[in-house]
C-alpha cells in the first residue's frame, strides 16, 4: 500500500481545520495507514504547528526555508517533489492554496489527480473510488482513479468529519536539508487586505443572508428590514456581490468571509459548497427558497419552501409585533 501524505496549511502558528479532516480522509483510503503530515514555513510558527500536528499524525515532516516563509505554491511544489516518494498518495485541502498547488504537483510527481472529493469509497485493485459533484452540486459522480503510480487528491473542506482518536505523540522529522535553493517564476509581493465595510458580518450572532433569489438590488432592503428587526446583519453569497448589490465585505464563502453566527437565515441561496464553506461553528441554519430541490435544504436545520420576497416582509412584521408586545 502506498504511503499517504497530507499537506497541512497553517497561519500564525495554527494549523488549518483541514489538518484533522485530511486525517479522516486518509483513514478512508486505508484504515490501517499512518499518514504523514507535511508542513512548510519558517521559524517559531512552523514549530508550533508541528507540535500540534504530532497529536494526530504519526509522523510530521517539517520543511523550513526562508523561501517558504510565505506559502508560495510554486515554490512549495518544487520542495514537495524533492521529498515525496514516488507512488505516494498526497492529500490536500481543496481551497485557494490547494487549487494552486495540486494539479501541477500531480504532473511533477507523475501521479493521478482527482479534485474536490467529497467521499472516499475505498480501494479496489489498483483503483481508488471516490465521489465528486458536478454542475454546481446538482449531480454527484462516482469516479475511479488509477493510483498505481500514486495520486494527488484534493479534499472538500468539511466533507470529512474528524474522527475521535487517541493522541498519538508522533515524531517530527526535519526535511529542510533535502530542500535547497528554491526558485520559481512567481514571486510573492504582498497581501492586500479586503476593505473593511461598514458592517463586520463576522461579529454578528444572527445573519440574514441573501442570494440570487433576492432578484434585484432594490429588494435588498427587504432583508435589511428583517435584519434591523432582529438586531442582525445582512450578508450574502457571491452572485449578489458579482451583481454589485452588496459590497464584497458582506460575502460569506470560501472567497469571502468565514462567519460563526448562532443563527443563519439563508434566503434565496441555492447552497453551493463555496458559500457553505464560509459558515463555521455549526449554527442553526434556516433555509427559505422557492426551489424545493435547492441543495441548501441538505445543509439547513429547518427549511421553508416559499418566495422570500413575500415571506420576509411578513416575517419582519411578525418580529416587530413580537417586540412591541414584549415591550409593553
Amino acid at each position, binding site marked *: 500500500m502506498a504511503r499517504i501524505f497530507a499537506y497541512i496549511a497553517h497561519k500564525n502558528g495554527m494549523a488549518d481545520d483541514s489538518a484533522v479532516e485530511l486525517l479522516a480522509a486518509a483513514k478512508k483510503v486505508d484504515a490501517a495507514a499512518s499518514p504523514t503530515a507535511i508542513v512548510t514555513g519558517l521559524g517559531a510558527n512552523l514549530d508550533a504547528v508541528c507540535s500540534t500536528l504530532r497529536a494526530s499524525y504519526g509522523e510530521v515532516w517539517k520543511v523550513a526555508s526562508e523561501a517558504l516563509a510565505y506559502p508560495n505554491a510554486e515554490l512549495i511544489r518544487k520542495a514537495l517533489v524533492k521529498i515525496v516518494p514516488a507512488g505516494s498518495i498526497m492529500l490536500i485541502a481543496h481551497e*485557494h492554496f490547494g487549487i494552486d498547488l*495540486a494539479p501541477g504537483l500531480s504532473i511533477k510527481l507523475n501521479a493521478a489527480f482527482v479534485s474536490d472529493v467529497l467521499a472516499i469509497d475505498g480501494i479496489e485493485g489498483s483503483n481508488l473510488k471516490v465521489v465528486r459533484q458536478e454542475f454546481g452540486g*446538482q449531480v*454527484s459522480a*462516482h469516479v475511479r482513479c488509477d493510483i498505481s503510480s500514486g495520486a494527488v487528491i484534493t479534499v472538500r473542506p468539511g466533507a470529512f468529519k474528524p474522527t475521535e482518536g487517541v493522541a498519538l505523540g508522533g515524531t517530527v522529522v526535519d526535511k529542510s536539508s533535502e530542500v535547497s535553493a528554491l526558485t520559481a517564476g512567481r514571486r510573492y509581493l504582498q*497581501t492586500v487586505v479586503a476593505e473593511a465595510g461598514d458592517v463586520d458580518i463576522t461579529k454578528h450572532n*444572527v445573519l440574514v443572508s441573501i442570494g440570487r433569489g433576492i432578484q434585484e438590488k432594490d429588494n435588498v432592503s427587504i432583508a435589511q428590514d428583517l435584519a434591523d428587526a432582529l438586531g442582525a446583519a445582512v450578508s450574502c453569497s457571491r452572485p449578489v456581490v458579482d451583481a454589485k448589490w452588496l459590497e464584497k465585505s458582506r460575502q460569506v464563502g470560501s472567497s469571502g468571509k468565514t462567519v460563526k453566527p448562532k443563527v443563519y437565515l439563508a434566503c434565496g441561496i441555492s447552497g453551493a459548497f463555496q458559500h457553505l464553506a464560509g459558515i463555521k461553528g455549526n449554527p442553526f441554519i434556516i433555509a427559505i427558497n422557492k426551489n424545493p430541490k435547492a441543495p441548501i435544504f441538505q445543509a439547513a436545520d429547518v*427549511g421553508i419552501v416559499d418566495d422570500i420576497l413575500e415571506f420576509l416582509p411578513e416575517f419582519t412584521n*411578525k418580529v416587530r409585533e413580537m417586540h412591541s408586545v414584549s415591550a409593553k
Partner: protein
Amino acid sequence: MEILVCARRVPDTSENEIALNSDGNDIERDELVYSINEPDNYAVEEALQIVARVGGNVTVATVGAEDDEEILRREMAMGANHGVLITDDAFAGSDARGIATILKAFVQKGSYDLILTGVQAEDGGAQVGGMLAALLDYPFASLVNSIEVVDGEKLKISREIEGGNKEISGIDLPCVLSIQTGINEPRYVGMKGIRQVASIPIPTYGATELALGASTVGAAAAKVTRVDYFVPALGKSAEMLEGTREENIEKLLELVAAKGGLK
C-alpha cells in the same frame, strides 16, 4: 503579446435543468443549451483588454468536436483574432491530464506569451490550467482576478484568497493563469457579430499534427474515469415546515427565539 485562451463548451447551468437521463449513465442532454464556460469567457475578455492596451493577438482554442466550434466563433465575434479546434477521435475519453497533454502539444506548435484558462468548468475540476503549466514548465497562478503587464517579460497579478483578500505576485512570462469570474465585465456578443463570423474557416489540429499517441491521450491513457452520475439519497436534511405561511412564520419565530436569535 500573443495570448492563448483554452476554452470549453459546457451546458449552460443557468438556463438548464440538470437531471439524470433514463439510463442513469449521464445527464439528460437532449434539451440542454450549451455555451462557453463562464470563467473562460472572462478569460477571453481579459485577453482582449490586455491586447487593447499592449498590442498583440488573442487565439481561442478548444479540445472537442465539431459542435464545440460554436464557442470559438462566439469568441471571435467578441474580438478574438483566431479560433482553433483541436479534434481527433483519438482524443475521446481523455482525462484532465490527457487534455493538458493535448494542449501542451498545441502550445508548443506556436509561440504564446501568455496562456489563460477559466478557473474551473462544469465538472468543478479546476485542474487543466495547473497541469498544462507543469507540463510546459511555465509558472502558474490560479484564481487570478487582476493582471497588470509590467513589461514584455513579466506581469503583476492578484489572486483571490480567503476573506476577500488579494495575494499580489510577480510572475514571469511565458506563464499560465487560471482566471476567476468577476475579473472584468465581459462585453456583449450580439447576434449580428456571430452571424458575421459564421462562415470563417476554423483550422483544426488532430493527433497527427500534434504527434500524440495513444499512450498519452484518449481513454486508454486516462487514469481518472467517471463511472456514473447519480443523485445521492438525501441524507440528513432540513426539517421542512409544511404549514401555511402564517403557521411557518409562527414556528420560525419560536425556533429563532429558542436559538437565541431574537434580541
